[in-house]
């Protein structure tokens, strides 16, 4: 294998699996370390720079970081990264003065942002301090978009949304509340240099099966129903409720229904339990509240009695796999099942809807009615129009919307400075030695064997008594410290210098995970099989260094390295070193041009 180029920013970034998996590349281990040190405000600000909504995401993030967490590979359960993020938000001091100031001098460029959700607000957060005039339009009276309208208050209180959207709006952003953009053409005719569409995927899919029209009075589209609940338009629901769908919206629907008077609430899903799109913890939360989930049932007909919904008829199916391993749901041959109910919530998916964008506005749409958007620059075929968040590529989640927002801001900043937006600047990276004394490192390298700590929950009786009572209580400082101690500090990288190595084997002997091997070189496949522990996880790199006296190479499998630093402590010559890697994604501004 060729020697690894550790100067390439991606190499060490990939070793920090959580940060690599996070669409916004939040420096997770860094903020967890700060939480352990009780520096909550510092932890919050690091989060804020990359993901903009630490308090919101600390409660609602889809947490792609957690399945990636190294702890999963050595112990099964990841560090509770998401809930630690909430700790930073819960215990921070007043951070107002640490926020950027509104630009003293405007640069004369005007940006229209459609929708006051995470995508638009992220663009505004990056551009407003640089002098851009950012105007945010939203049909609702308060900012937040789907974070406010679709996420139940028992998961995300309004106060948190107010604070964090406020941080952005206070950067000198103009917020045109209650102003729905009805025409792209009209907006383009105004004196905006750029228009950003961050309007989300606001249309819930319907279910067109017999009885839908007749029983319409008791059949509700999930996301619309959730926003009606959020805005206090709806205060009750029937006693027997069926929620159709297996995603996170379905989980929010069933739990909301439980709180609004639903006594017999059940979720019915076409697929099996394991294939459901809902995050495992959301399924757990529903189960904790006594909501059963029925699988492999396909809705066939809404039963009604003269227009009054009486139940839903389901066909039983089973999963079959074809030669290519694709799953198909086929009738099981068993008799149909009827579930009686008073109301149905349909949460079978979301889709984008752009009736307000004229098809002659210079924006190309594909066959599915989606705008044609560049995956890197987020520019549409109209160079002045960018799409971000769910509006760009369909429904994902908040953290993806934030990541898009940062990229759009970079595109706009470059474009309005006459630069090629396809040329994307590299992130800022620092790699710094962490040695403080002979046996002292600036990070806690003693690996604890603790299992994941559970987040305390409100008791069911209290939680179910109100639609607004927050269910999760969050970690207290003591639990947060214990959970933070589980982080393996993957951002403190093992850096090897071949010219210093005397090949004494000390690192090999002391490595608890058998990650280090000194051996003859070979191609990757051959080498992976010959390491001290065969490197079977192909998603994880082998770190190769050549130039050793004996002509062998050092090969380190990055897979399950604990970053305990014992190799560096045992190394008599300092050939191994522990260097803290810090990566900050490119933000719009002079540095990216």
């Amino acid at each position, binding site marked *: 294998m060729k020697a690894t180029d550790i100067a390439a920013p991606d190499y060490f970034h990939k070793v920090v699996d959580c940060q690599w998996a996070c669409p916004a590349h939040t420096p997770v281990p860094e903020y967890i370390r700060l939480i352990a040190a009780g520096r909550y405000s510092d932890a919050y600000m690091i989060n804020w720079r990359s993901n903009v909504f630490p308090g919101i995401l600390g409660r609602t993030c889809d947490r792609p970081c957690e399945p990636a967490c190294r702890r999963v*590979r*050595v*112990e099964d359960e990841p560090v509770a990264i998401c809930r630690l993020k909430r700790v930073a938000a819960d215990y921070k001091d007043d951070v107002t003065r640490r926020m950027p100031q509104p630009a003293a001098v405007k640069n004369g460029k005007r940006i229209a942002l459609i929708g006051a959700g995470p995508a638009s607000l992220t663009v505004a957060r990056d551009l407003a301090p640089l002098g851009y005039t950012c105007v945010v339009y939203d049909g609702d009276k308060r900012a937040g978009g789907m974070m406010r309208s679709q996420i139940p208050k028992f998961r995300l209180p309004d106060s948190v949304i107010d604070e964090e959207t406020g941080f952005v709006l206070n950067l000198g952003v103009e917020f045109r509340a209650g102003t729905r953009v009805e025409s792209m053409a009209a907006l383009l005719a105004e004196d905006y240099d750029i228009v950003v569409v961050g309007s989300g995927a606001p249309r819930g899919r319907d279910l067109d099966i017999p009885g839908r029209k007749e029983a319409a009075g008791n059949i509700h589209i999930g996301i619309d129903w959730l926003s009606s609940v959020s805005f206090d338009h709806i205060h009750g629901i029937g006693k027997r409720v069926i929620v159709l769908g297996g995603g996170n919206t379905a989980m929010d629907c069933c739990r909301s229904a439980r709180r609004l008077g639903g006594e017999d609430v059940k979720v019915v899903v076409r697929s099996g339990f394991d294939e459901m799109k809902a995050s495992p913890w959301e399924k757990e939360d529903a189960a904790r509240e006594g909501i059963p989930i029925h699988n492999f049932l396909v809705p066939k007909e809404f039963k009604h009695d003269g227009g009054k919904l009486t139940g839903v008829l389901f066909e039983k199916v089973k999963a079959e796999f074809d030669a290519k391993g694709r799953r198909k749901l086929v009738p099981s041959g068993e008799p149909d099942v009827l579930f009686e109910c008073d109301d149905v919530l349909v949460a079978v998916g979301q889709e984008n809807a752009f009736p307000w964008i004229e098809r002659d506005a210079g924006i190309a749409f594909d066959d599915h009615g989606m705008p044609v958007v560049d995956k890197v620059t987020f520019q549409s075929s109209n160079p002045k129009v960018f799409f971000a968040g769910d509006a760009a590529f369909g429904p994902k989640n908040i953290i993806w919307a934030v990541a898009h927002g940062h990229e759009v801001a970079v595109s706009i900043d470059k474009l309005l400075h006459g630069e090629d937006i396809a040329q994307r600047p590299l992130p800022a990276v620092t790699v710094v030695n962490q040695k403080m004394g002979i*046996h002292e490192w600036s990070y806690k*390298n*003693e*690996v604890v*064997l603790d299992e994941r700590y559970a987040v305390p929950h409100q008791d069911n009786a209290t939680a179910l008594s109100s639609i607004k009572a927050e269910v999760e209580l969050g970690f207290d400082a003591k639990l947060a410290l214990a959970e933070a101690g589980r982080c393996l500090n993957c951002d403190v990288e093992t850096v090897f210098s071949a010219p210093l190595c*005397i*090949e*004494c*084997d*000390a690192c*090999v*002997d*002391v490595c*608890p*995970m*058998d*990650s280090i091997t000194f051996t003859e070189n070979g191609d990757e496949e051959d080498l992976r099989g010959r390491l001290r*522990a*065969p490197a*079977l996880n192909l998603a994880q790199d082998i770190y190769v260094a050549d130039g050793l*006296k*004996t002509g062998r190479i050092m090969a380190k499998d990055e897979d*399950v390295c*604990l970053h*305990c630093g*014992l190799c560096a*402590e*045992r*190394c*008599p*010559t300092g050939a191994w070193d522990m260097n803290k890697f810090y990566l900050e994604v490119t933000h719009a501004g002079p540095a990216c041009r």
Partner: protein
Amino acid sequence: MTYLAKPKFHHPSLPKNEIGFTRRDYEASTSTLCAGCGHDSISASIIEACFELSIEPHRVAKISGIGCSSKTPDYFLGASHGFNSVHGRMPSVLTGANLANRELIYLGVSGDGDSASIGFGQFAHSVRRAVNMTYIVENNGVYGLTKGQFSATADRGSKSKKGALNSDSSIDLVAIALQLGATFVARSFSGDKGQLVPLIKAAIAHKGAAFIDVISPCIAFNNHAGSTKSLDYVREHNEAVNALDIMVGRDPITVNYAPGKVAAVTQHDGSVLNLRKLNDEYDPHDRLAAMNFLQRHAAQGQIVTGLLYVEADADDLHSNLDTVETPLNQLDTAALCPGASALDKINASLR
């Protein structure tokens, strides 16, 4: 030296041996030796060997004297018996323990100071008495604990870290062991586990006095230019006479060496040593030739490593003395003190 204990986490696919233990189960407390010490590599090799042989740790008695090397039994086989004796007295303590209970596996760990100076006589007598043991000398040619004086195994003409020349002749423990009748004599290098681990396994399987001299560079005081026991010097002057596979009623263990001639040696316990010859002329069954070969190469400045001599069907002290097979602590009073009539019988046989 590290202050942190090695985390208990281990590689998720760490293999288990026949008795269900992983290699990590043969570890013990964290080493307090200097970072990079060759002795730590030897400890790791002992761990590897015992794991591969599927030895139950409680069947091992590890005995040592005083010095850096003699501290090491604290760093491997935490669940075995241990005795850290007086400087240079490891061989007598080991011999006594062995006579009292021959069912244990005896691992004597010593250093060049411990065995070639104060314990030289003890070393000699345990070897000539054919005590069934694996006697490992962790040989760095220097007194590391007292900051770098020459030891008795330092080569004449070699230089100390401060630049002083050694004017004394050195003691070659391998040559002495050969002369004293050790039935398994090997030399290896802490920086070559591929060679050392099978040698330790073979020595443990050997019935009789097995001696392994392991050159173990002292990184702090004897790893400089001018030293003949530095990592670089040993690598450059290493003359390996053979490579070893050992099979103890199990599938062959694959080694990385290019195939050459193979000589199979079946030992007392049925284990088979497969010697791959690297040096065509070398015959490990000929004690005289081994002594000659060793001296000739030493004169050329080469360090001969590998299994230098083995006597496959060697006897041990117990067979020579015709002692009882049962460990003494398992015998009852009647067997231990058979009384006057038994004494009379013995006396009569001597008349």
